[in-house]
């Protein structure tokens, strides 16, 4: 079906409402209806959101000056350079194929330091699996590094990428893990399950590149890499042949199957039998460990003490106690994402204890945050902070905040500072709306980079840690008195004195005693509960 001009105009209006954040319930229903029934509408939607994501990249490239901390003051710009910079920006490689509403596209390789070992996936399940002789075995729950070749001799191995994509590899098979957003199937068979947060994840090989549009699909590549079969189990994918004569992408829907070879694209013989085989359960063992956690709901409305609930922790976390006496007459409460929330007005802060937070141990910090559109740079630090007393991390505090250093990354995006590094996202948080933030910390066996840090905004991977420059203001010591204490709404200064104050609202803070997987983060975001 071809869209008529009036239909295109209607779709254009609906898509514009999405990217401008003005979409109402009636428009949502209309758009959902369009997207469910029309492939062309889906393509149009992807093009519009992709265009917006590209424009964000262009505009970020052009914004070279750091805004000052004055409400309403516009960032400095260098408009006379715009034409030259546009030409320069046009040469920057950015994946434009797919976008998630209000979210950036999958990160490009340039955002991460090239000489750093970066981990981008994890072995999360398996059955009767054996790694190929001569390759480094991956332990259950072991991390998989960017660029690593996974060679499975037999059995099944489930690899969960940090983007949320899950790949079940069936041996014998060889898979190159290119990044959190892409992999190359050299040969063998895999089934990919791709949640909405992983939209844009791609799997390629010499004959085809398959890009997810929200789906589950299987890919079988022969040993020589000369032919690949793609079978779609759910949803749909965009499959682009890589053969010289035919490179037009094909949209494959549920129960569609195609064979991609150097000679061209053809149907798959006995595809019904293959689909039937794929429906058989594998009986996978999932490598999960129990989660201990503390939760502050901030639902109290008549007190400056906010109750902590602890589960499965060796030592319980303590209630968060607000410090407001010097500035504000009463503790600040507001309507939250779920019931009540804690309001930071730029002067108050709160302190609680989470035993073990100061050690280099795995944990995940998750909360909802709403930052005013006009928040000043002086009110960026910090949503959550804690001191660290650890030899490897050099006593550098951790700050989860929004970025106010435009020379290091986009203004207003999620930022995490920690010993020797920092992570930056790309979703602007200063928009007066609730965003779900999750920051995952995983210790590494590397003295030069002892901790891995991953950020998620609204359930989607939004920035990995990278080394910070010497001399950066994150290199500050904290007092041993702050061992195990978390501070909400302020910055840690030398000797642990709370310094600057954060402005914004916070709700439903969780801290877990292990690194959560992407699907666990999404589940907690959606249910406000931890899987026990």
């Amino acid at each position: 079906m071809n869209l008529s001009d009036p239909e295109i105009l209607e779709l254009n209006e609906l898509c514009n409402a999405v990217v401008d954040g003005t979409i109402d319930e009636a428009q949502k229903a209309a758009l959902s209806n369009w997207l469910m029934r029309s492939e062309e509408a889906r393509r149009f939607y992807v093009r519009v959101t992709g265009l917006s994501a590209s424009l964000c990249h262009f505009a970020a490239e052009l914004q070279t000056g750091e805004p000052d901390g004055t409400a309403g003051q516009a960032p400095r710009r260098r408009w006379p350079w715009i034409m030259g910079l546009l030409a320069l920006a046009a040469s920057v490689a950015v994946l434009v194929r797919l976008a998630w509403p209000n979210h950036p596209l999958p990160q490009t390789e340039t955002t991460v330091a090239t000489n750093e070992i970066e981990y981008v996936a994890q072995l999360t399940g398996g059955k009767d699996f054996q790694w190929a002789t001569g390759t480094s075995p991956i332990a259950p729950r072991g991390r998989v590094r960017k660029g690593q070749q996974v060679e499975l001799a037999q059995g099944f191995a489930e690899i969960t990428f940090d983007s949320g994509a899950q790949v079940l590899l069936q041996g014998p098979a060889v898979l190159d893990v290119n990044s959190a957003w892409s992999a190359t199937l050299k040969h063998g068979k895999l089934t990919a399950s791709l949640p909405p947060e992983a939209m844009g994840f791609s799997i390629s090989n010499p004959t085809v590149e398959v890009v997810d549009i929200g789906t589950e699909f299987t890919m079988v590549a022969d040993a020589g890499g000369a032919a690949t079969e793609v079978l779609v189990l759910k949803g749909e994918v965009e499959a682009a042949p890589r053969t010289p004569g035919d490179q037009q992408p094909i949209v494959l829907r549920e129960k569609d199957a195609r064979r991609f070879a150097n000679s061209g694209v053809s149907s798959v013989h006995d595809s019904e039998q293959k689909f039937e085989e794929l429906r058989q359960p594998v009986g996978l063992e999932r490598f999960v460990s129990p989660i201990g956690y503390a939760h502050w709901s901030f639902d109290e409305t008549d007190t400056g003490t906010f109750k902590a609930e602890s589960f499965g922790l060796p030592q319980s976390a303590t209630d968060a106690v607000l410090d407001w006496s010097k500035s504000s007459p009463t503790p600040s409460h507001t309507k939250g994402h779920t019931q009540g929330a804690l309001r930071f007005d730029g002067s108050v802060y709160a302190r609680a204890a989470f035993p073990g937070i100061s050690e280099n141990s795995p944990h995940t910090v998750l909360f909802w945050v709403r930052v005013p559109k006009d928040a000043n740079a002086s009110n960026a630090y910090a949503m959550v902070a804690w001191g660290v007393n650890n030899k490897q991390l050099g006593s550098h505090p951790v700050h989860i905040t929004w970025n106010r250093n435009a020379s290091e990354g986009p203004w207003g995006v999620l930022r995490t500072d920690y010993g020797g590094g920092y992570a930056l996202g790309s979703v602007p948080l200063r928009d007066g709306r609730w965003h779900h933030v999750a920051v995952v910390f995983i210790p590494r066996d590397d003295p030069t980079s002892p901790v891995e840090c991953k950020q998620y905004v609204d359930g989607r991977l939004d920035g990995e840690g990278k080394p910070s420059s010497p001399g950066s203001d994150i290199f500050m010591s904290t007092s041993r008195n702050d061992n195990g204490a978390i501070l909400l709404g302020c910055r840690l200064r030398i000797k642990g004195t709370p310094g600057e104050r954060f402005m914004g609202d916070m709700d439903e803070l969780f801290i877990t005693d292990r690194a959560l997987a992407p699907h666990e983060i999404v589940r907690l975001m959606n249910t406000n509960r931890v899987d026990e």
Partner: protein
Amino acid sequence: MDQRHEALGQCLQRLHPRDRELLLRRYEPGGTVEEAAKRSGRTLQTAYKALARLRKLLLDCVTTRLSQAEAA
């Protein structure tokens, strides 16, 4: 994908500077339609309409340029 990005850069350059400024102010980090409207001297309603028109224009322009590149 590089081609698409390059096409977008070329299409942006063809816009009237005032329109280009509106778009880039809207899409700069932390940018809002309200601020973009104020700084380009438009009302909010006009800015929304202009942005919708400009996005459609860019979409068509990028599509045309990519088709031309494929045909060449």
